[in-house]
């Protein structure tokens, strides 16, 4: 009678391998620990680096990085500037290398005066509003990166002649019901009238402009006795912000530069990023090393278990197991260990990322592939680690195994 060659199902081999592992659970767990540490280190490093990287990307903002704002210190009581910002702030700053645009502005005290547009009496709607008046220098529009919806921005001439012209912020224009400027609409502030020459659509800085009535500084000085601008907005070239910040106060107030407050963007994190990249590389190497150590651990223990289980190998061969069945069994055992280590390691790693993020109030960011690939990496580690012991086991002659394992 003929018997077909021995066929062993994959599930059978997997079950045999699992049984082999569970025969010594303590040792199996300790063996898995190396892989756990390696995968944990890798996942945590990649996750934290990604999270931190995301954080840096979020904080790096071209708009913020090129903005310097100088305000006059209003003193302890906040009523009078200790050092006035000069009226020619725009010219002084424009001479600095790295400044793209500069403009000064200041709130104008108009008392309780209400603002209204053309005297159309609407019996239902409100026609008079409290609108903030802001005096601005001609250079302010580019300095705040403003855009006009219609009309024009005032120039130096308007200011010098103290023309009663105004530019309305988008919000103020809507409230005052001014949509066009080609017919030269007039708004009244108290008893004074201003011709609207433009409407602001958008500003990227100093957003209060959008709800204000903006007039030339010269006009504000004549009509409302404005003492000085309170704020200077500077638009710098990228990378020049720190330099301009250190020069602006001196340029504006050579005698008492310290009395002006300069807001500059946070240091553009170049150094920090470098450090983080170095730390990152270090930890990836560390993770790789501990994974390697884990692999060696698995290889070692699998090899020891091959030597210990010589008798079992011999017996299995006597029961009809082929060489490859023996090899697969040990290979599966080591792969199982790697896979389990990978799953545990990935879980702990993700936990570490979440905890680190929580502590630093970051949003944890993790590539979705990492939790999937990490256990796989563990499995591959186990597989590779088991190759040599498995080959050793399969090469054993049954009688030799029985003799040595008896």
């Amino acid at each position, binding site marked *: 009678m003929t018997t077909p060659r021995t066929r062993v199902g994959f599930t059978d081999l997997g079950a045999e391998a699992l049984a082999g592992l569970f025969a010594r659970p303590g040792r199996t767990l300790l063996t898995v620990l190396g892989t756990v540490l390696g995968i944990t280190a890798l996942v945590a490093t990649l996750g934290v680096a990604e999270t931190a990287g995301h954080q840096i990307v979020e904080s790096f903002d071209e708009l913020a990085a090129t903005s310097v704002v100088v305000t006059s210190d209003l003193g302890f009581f906040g009523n009078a500037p200790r050092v006035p910002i000069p009226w020619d702030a725009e010219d002084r700053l424009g001479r600095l290398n790295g400044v793209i645009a500069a403009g000064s502005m200041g709130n104008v005290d108009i008392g309780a005066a209400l603002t209204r547009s053309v005297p159309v009496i609407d019996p239902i709607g409100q026609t008079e509003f409290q609108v903030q008046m802001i005096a601005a220098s001609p250079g302010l529009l580019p300095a705040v990166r403003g855009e006009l919806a219609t009309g024009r921005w005032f120039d130096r001439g308007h200011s010098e002649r103290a023309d009663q012209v105004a530019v309305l912020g988008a919000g103020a224009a809507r409230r005052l019901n001014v949509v066009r400027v080609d017919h030269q609409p007039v708004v009244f502030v108290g008893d004074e009238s201003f011709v609207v020459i433009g409407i602001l659509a958008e500003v990227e800085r100093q957003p209060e402009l959008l709800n204000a009535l903006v007039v030339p500084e010269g006009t504000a000085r004549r009509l409302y006795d404005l003492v000085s601008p309170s704020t200077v907005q500077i638009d710098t070239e990228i990378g020049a912000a720190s330099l301009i910040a250190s020069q602006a106060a001196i340029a504006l107030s050579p005698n008492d530069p310290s009395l002006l407050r300069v807001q500059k963007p946070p240091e553009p994190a170049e150094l920090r990023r470098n450090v983080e990249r170095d730390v990152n590389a270090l930890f990836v190497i560390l993770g790789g090393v501990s994974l390697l150590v884990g692999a060696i651990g698995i290889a070692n223990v699998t090899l020891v278990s091959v030597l210990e289980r010589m008798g079992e190998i*011999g017996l299995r061969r006597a*029961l009809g*197991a082929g060489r490859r069945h023996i090899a697969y069994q040990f290979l599966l055992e080591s792969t199982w260990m790697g896979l389990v280590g990978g799953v545990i390691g990935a879980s702990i790693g993700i936990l570490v990322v979440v905890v680190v993020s929580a502590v630093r109030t970051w949003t944890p960011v993790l590539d979705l592939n990492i939790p999937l690939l990490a256990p796989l990496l563990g499995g591959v580690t186990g597989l590779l680690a088991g190759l040599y012991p498995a080959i050793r086991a399969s090469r054993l002659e049954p009688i030799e195994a029985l003799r040595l394992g008896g």
Partner: protein
Amino acid sequence: MQKEAEPLIRLEGVSRAFRSGEVEVAAVSDVELTIAVGDYLSIAGPSGSGKSTLLHLVGLLDRPTAGRYWFEGEDVSSIPEGRRNALRAGRIGFVFQAFYLLAHRSVLENVMLATVYNNIAKRDRASVAKTALEKVGLGHRIDFHPSRLSGGERQRVAIARAVVTRPALLLCDEPTGNLDSVTSESILELFEELRTDGLTLVVVTHDPVVSAHARRTVHMRDGRLDQ
């Protein structure tokens, strides 16, 4: 030496030499042996006489360096590894002096181990293993671990594992070597029972008591058989 038309085993001029450095040592040389179906043969001889090697050759655990070997009429001297594995799994059972039970598995699981390599359907494995254990008188111990069994009981488990696949040939290498005389006697009685069920037994032993139970005995000395 042929007694029947279709013996279970026929060895013709079988030799097995081991190479140790430059020297070739003949463990088994020029053995002629025929074993009929249902035979109960004992191979006796002092240790180092090559009787275990002969048993390994017969059990397809080892290949002869010379000669030819027919198993159930099939020339198995030079068949591929896979076929040898299948014959070991299906047609040949082994009982060793050292039992080789897996300490972390129950008696039943140890017996079921043999069914893994024998294409026995998964759902039938437990029941055939139970039947085999009942046959060796251990039906009440199936959930025990080997460490809680006596030597004789362990050997019975090993025998159950060897016969669970219903082989044609049972090869025993010093099956009573680790047992006391009373226990040995009971194992030998079990062999007798198995033989009456139609199993062919070959027992290697240096114990004359064991040999006395066999239907015939061949003696080995220095790798040669003198019958």
